């Protein structure tokens, strides 16, 4: 702070207010070197989509990673130029460093919860999961190759899923066939298919991000990393009748098929008007006892909404290798001819 010849300090001005002497600023300049400390706020929920350039989601941060015409980096977009005929390994070789750098610059993992929405048949999925630092409160919503996918897609998907599991990330898997068949209708927004359907499915999940992450992390402690899901979007009493029917109906269209006894946990998140909470909770109990009596854990979470229509999402915890088993043959077929495309080879 500047001071006068008599040692009086004063914030600004030319003359000392105490004695009238001239103020000297010469020895105060170092005070201007200090910069204010900023603690950036990265928000509560971040979503990074991989292979879905047009996913429309509501979160504090939404980033998109995809391959396109040319390299492009902004705070919300990481687009790499397509590599003609490129495998996940080619993308890793070309972009791993840049990807790591971008993820750090956009503060990946600095929000409370992070969801990666990943098309694991896309070569960039391996790139992103390779580049990802070790993070907490991070989950992967993964579209996974299935038996209808090509061996190349199965190989890519297998490697990406293996990476996610190796990093200890909880995964909610949707088979490619399930994802292709997703079709939702709401009176106000009409039909939603493909990317729009994915956005519509993720919308309630992201609204309940802390509940969802809590459930996934509880399962993680039980050693359950892999999940699948079923959902009713914009359901109503006139379509499904009582809530138990809705729980039962949605369980017939699960995002990744397996035997019922392989589901180890079952959790439902319901978004509806407050007066319906009791009925949904009671029906969840009936649903669980009827279909998942042997589940290690089952939890019901309710979120109040204003809408007359309700959303219901149920996630099912299952053994990790279930999702990999179905695509292992395609993965192996590729590795047999190109050993460098094995999951062990990924950095």
């Amino acid at each position, binding site marked *: 702070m500047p001071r006068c010849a008599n040692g009086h300090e004063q914030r*600004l001005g030319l003359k000392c207010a105490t004695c009238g002497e001239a103020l000297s600023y*010469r020895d105060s300049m170092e005070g201007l*070197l200090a*910069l204010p400390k*900023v603690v*950036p706020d990265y928000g509560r929920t971040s979503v990074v989509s991989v292979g879905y350039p047009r996913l429309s989601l509501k979160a504090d941060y939404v980033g998109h990673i995809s391959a396109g015409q040319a390299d492009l980096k902004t705070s919300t977009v990481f687009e790499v130029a397509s590599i003609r005929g490129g495998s996940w390994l080619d993308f890793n070789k070309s972009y791993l460093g840049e990807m790591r750098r971008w993820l750090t*610059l*956009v503060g990946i993992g600095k929000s409370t919860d992070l969801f990666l929405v990943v098309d694991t048949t896309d070569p960039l999925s391996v790139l992103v999961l390779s580049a990802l630092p070790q993070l907490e409160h991070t989950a992967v919503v993964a579209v996974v190759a299935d038996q209808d996918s090509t061996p190349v897609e199965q190989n890519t998907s297998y490697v990406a899923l293996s990476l996610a599991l190796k990093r200890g990330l909880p995964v909610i898997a949707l088979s490619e066939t399930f994802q292709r068949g997703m079709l939702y209708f709401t009176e106000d927004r009409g039909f939603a298919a493909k990317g729009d359907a994915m956005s519509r499915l993720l919308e309630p999940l992201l609204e309940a991000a802390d509940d969802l992450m809590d459930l996934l992390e509880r399962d993680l402690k039980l050693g359950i990393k892999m999940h699948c899901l079923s959902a009713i979007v914009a359901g109503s009493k006139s379509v499904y009748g009582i809530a138990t029917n809705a729980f039962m109906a949605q369980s017939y269209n699960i995002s990744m098929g397996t035997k019922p006894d392989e589901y180890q946990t079952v959790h439902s998140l319901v978004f509806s008007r407050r007066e319906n909470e009791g009925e949904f909770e009671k029906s969840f109990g009936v649903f669980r006892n009827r279909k998942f009596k042997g589940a290690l854990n089952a939890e019901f979470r309710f979120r109040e909404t204003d809408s007359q229509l309700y959303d219901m999402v149920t996630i099912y915890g299952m053994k990790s290798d279930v999702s990999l088993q179905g695509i292992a043959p395609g993965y192996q077929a590729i590795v047999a001819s190109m050993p460098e495309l094995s999951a062990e080879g990924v950095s």
Partner: protein
Amino acid sequence: MAVPTAGGDASAQGPSRTYKLASAAYRDKTYPDGILRVNEAGSELELSQLTGKRKREEAVIARFRIEPTAEVLVDGPLLRVSELSIALETPGIAAEVADILRRPARERETLRGLSEAESSLAGFLETREGALKLLSRMKVDPRGALLSVESMWVADDTEPIDAVYSSYSTRLSESLEKMKSSLANEEKNLGAALTGRLFALAYSIGAVQNALFEPDSDLVQELASLQELGIATTAQDLRLDRPTERLLLRAHGALLALVTTRPPSN
């Protein structure tokens, strides 16, 4: 003997001083009983001679402008400038004339020094404004802010935000040192008072930058301080883009006024 004559000679610009010469030599001709007129700005000279029987009439021998780069040599009562050699009545008077004649060169040097000093102030303050602008953006858009200064992050094992602070800290230290060294170098031309004013200006603009970083600041003290420094502005004006550049531009007029109203000699 010096006789200041305010506008005494219609040919001279501004007030002038008149000196009686013991002798004068101009272009290889000598003139006894010469009279020298020098304008106060030190830029014009007039050599004349008393003529007539009673030596009461004055005939102008030469009138010329003195370039600011012209060398003024003094040796006792003798003074040489351009093609003119004169002997004044005393060494003190010769020194006085030399001082006047050296004024344009001195002012030129002062203006050059001021320009250097202002440039160094701008270097430091604009670096600081850039840093604070980035930190302000960091509060609302940390990702975009960090990506915009990606080149500052060179070591992958550090946090980007730490790298930004570190880079700006280095830049600020360097530009502050440069500014201080420039002001120290120019102080001999600018004088202590003007140099002190430049320090006050730099610090006050820094205080404005700090206040602008805080969205709730009313800027009252800062505005009063700027007013004292001869810069009239408003809080609204300060919140426009590039306040530092605009403040320095406005300060320039006040600083120039200080240069021209300084005492004739240090």
